[in-house]
């Protein structure tokens, strides 16, 4: 795999895939009988994988969906999920109350 091909696949990797791949590179570099040139390639890939992992972590924002059902083709039908109103209200009320308080003080 050339460096460009690697970069292309990198952006498609899930966190777990990146993590597994990173583990492989670390292992290869630590225990493998790599030539110096291969070791450098290995290191470079490892650094890129690390960057990918951090990138995914930093950009993470949890999405919560409701599974409404399955389509005829067996695909998931989802819509945004929010906690039921009557339970969400007390929390919100508390928040707005504290916000109001902080305004007055």
């Amino acid at each position, binding site marked *: 795999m050339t460096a460009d091909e690697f970069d292309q696949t990198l952006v498609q990797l899930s966190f777990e895939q990146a993590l597994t791949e990173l583990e492989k590179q670390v292992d290869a570099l630590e225990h493998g009988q790599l030539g*110096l040139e291969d070791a450098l390639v290995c290191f470079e890939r490892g650094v890129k994988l690390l960057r990918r992992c951090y990138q995914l972590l930093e950009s993470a924002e949890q999405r919560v969906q409701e599974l409404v059902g399955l389509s005829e083709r067996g695909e998931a039908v989802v819509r945004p999920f929010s906690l039921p109103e009557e339970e969400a209200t007390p929390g919100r009320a508390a928040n707005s109350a504290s916000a109001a308080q902080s305004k007055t003080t």
Partner: protein
Amino acid sequence: MSQSSAMLPFDTPPSPPGAKAVSALTVSQLTALIRELLEEAFDDVWVCGEISNHKEHMSGHVYFTLKDETAQIRCVMWRDAAKRLRFRVHDGLQVLVRGRVSVFPPRGDYQLYVREMQPRGLGPLELAFRQLYEKLQKLGLFAPERKRPLPRVPRRIGIVTSPRGAVIRDMLRILGRRWPLAEIWIRPVTVQGETAPAEITEAVRWFGRLSGVVDVVIVARGGGSAEDLWAFNEECVAFAIRACSENGVPVISAVGHEVDWTIADYAADKRAATPSEAAEMVVPDQQEMRQLLQTWKRRLEQALRSRVQNARRHLESFLRHPVFRRPLQRIKEKVQLVDDLGSQLHHAMQHFLSERKQKLALLTGRLHALSPLQVLQRGYSLTWKEGEKALLRSSDEVAVGDCLITQLARGCLRSRVESVQSPGDAHS
């Protein structure tokens, strides 16, 4: 007679004509009377005994005999009552039943119409649980080798639970804190009551069909009574969980508190003591993950550094090699070799020459011995006529007055012949 016959109608012979009519009962009437008596007396009784001749009909009604050591009574349990039983009725089961005694007129049997049944010794739910557990275990539903490992880092997590209450909130909070990368798909269901098992089953089956889309499913419910948690002890839920797992989506069961074990817990790939624990175990913690990444980063750097050092040491070991350390050494060695060969050649030549010299000297000595000069030493001399080269060997060759040259061992003489004596004279 007639008095007594009135008192004992069954003994009454057919009424003679004209006599006061004696009321004979029909079988149905009698049966109805008996039934009334029995129903009044045994409207609501609890009876304990052992079940035998148990039969469940297509209609859903259940028939059996309740017996002890010395007696037995026929029993019927109508479909509606039988449906409410959580455990399986079978011969030999010791039970406590509640019902009323009545008569089945077509057969003239009295029987117990059972509306409730409890196993003896165990609670009914406990018995039902044990029975289902044994059945499913025999079917291999709980086999450890069928357990699917959880994904290390799930991208999408399915949750089957009630959308209300603290359970879903706690789970979302924990998931959000630990691993916000994961997308959560919630399938809201009711988790107790009549419809709960079917809803849970359907939800789990849906997730099972989303293999590759959803990486893991959590089936969760907060704490409650055994009755509240019952939906998770239903066979259909256990089968749905296994089917989901077999399809490639592992299932975590998180029902009730730590002490509550449900059939779903056994069927699932992993049991969490509580829903919160399920949320903890299903994802890695991002803080720990960051630390792990840091560790790997260090290891990567360390490994490269040592690899480079290794390469350097290797290189240096080459450089320490004499070839690189004293590059002229080889040449010097060659020169020395040439020198050596040169001197060898020289010696050989010397030897050769001296040998020849010796030989020459030897030859010279031998030659010298033969030299006429040597003879001259001993007092002989050589004489030839002046101007001629031939040596004189006879006096005949000279005449008086010839000039003769005489070679001595040392020096020469020139002399003139004064007389000649012929060779014959000399001998005489």
